């Protein structure tokens, strides 16, 4: 079966404690694997302040994950995330060739920056 590369970011309700965060992350990871997906990377950003309030909360626990999966897997995974009350928001992106090139560069730490240029022009 043809698999695509996906990125998913979701925000867990900050009222939970550390162990419960782990549980939710495990749940989601297992869910992806149960749909024939292989996780490539799971990156927990931890608690971050929101730029605006979501569901009356001012911060949330961010998790960013990358996985290979057939396209049929995405819909049931998103469905479960929607049902789960502990997940405030999620965003799934399918990677195209340019985004994959970007991902590889990021892994190697070769990302282009625009910083120096911005400073000299001001």
């Amino acid at each position, binding site marked *: 079966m043809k698999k695509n590369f996906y990125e998913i970011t979701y925000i867990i309700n900050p009222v939970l404690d550390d162990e419960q965060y782990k549980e939710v992350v495990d749940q989601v990871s297992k869910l992806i694997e149960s749909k024939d997906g292989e996780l490539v990377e799971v990156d927990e950003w931890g608690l971050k302040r929101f730029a605006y309030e979501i569901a009356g909360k001012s911060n949330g626990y961010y998790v960013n994950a990358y996985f290979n999966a057939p396209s049929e897997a995405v819909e049931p995974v998103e469905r479960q995330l929607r049902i789960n009350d502990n997940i405030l928001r999620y965003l799934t992106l399918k990677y195209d060739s340019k985004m994959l090139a970007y991902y590889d*560069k990021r892994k190697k730490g070769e990302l282009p920056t625009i910083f120096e240029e911005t400073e000299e022009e001001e």
Partner: protein
Amino acid sequence: MIKNPSHPKKGHLKTKDCRFTKAGFDYIDYKDVDTLQRFLNDQGKILPRRVTGTSAKFQRQFSRAVRRARFLALIPYVAENVR
């Protein structure tokens, strides 16, 4: 831009380059909040191309990245300015 050699504005106008093209971007990531913020004003609005000189291609990608970052509350939809 201005072809007429005696045009008064000739020599004063800067040709702006797209910074994303110059830096060799493949894709503008919504997670890269620092970069995004350089192309927003204090209120969190997207700066127009005529100000930043961004190419049409990257302006589209950039605004998409901004919308994604806003959705995940990484950057505000509306920033309340304390004056």
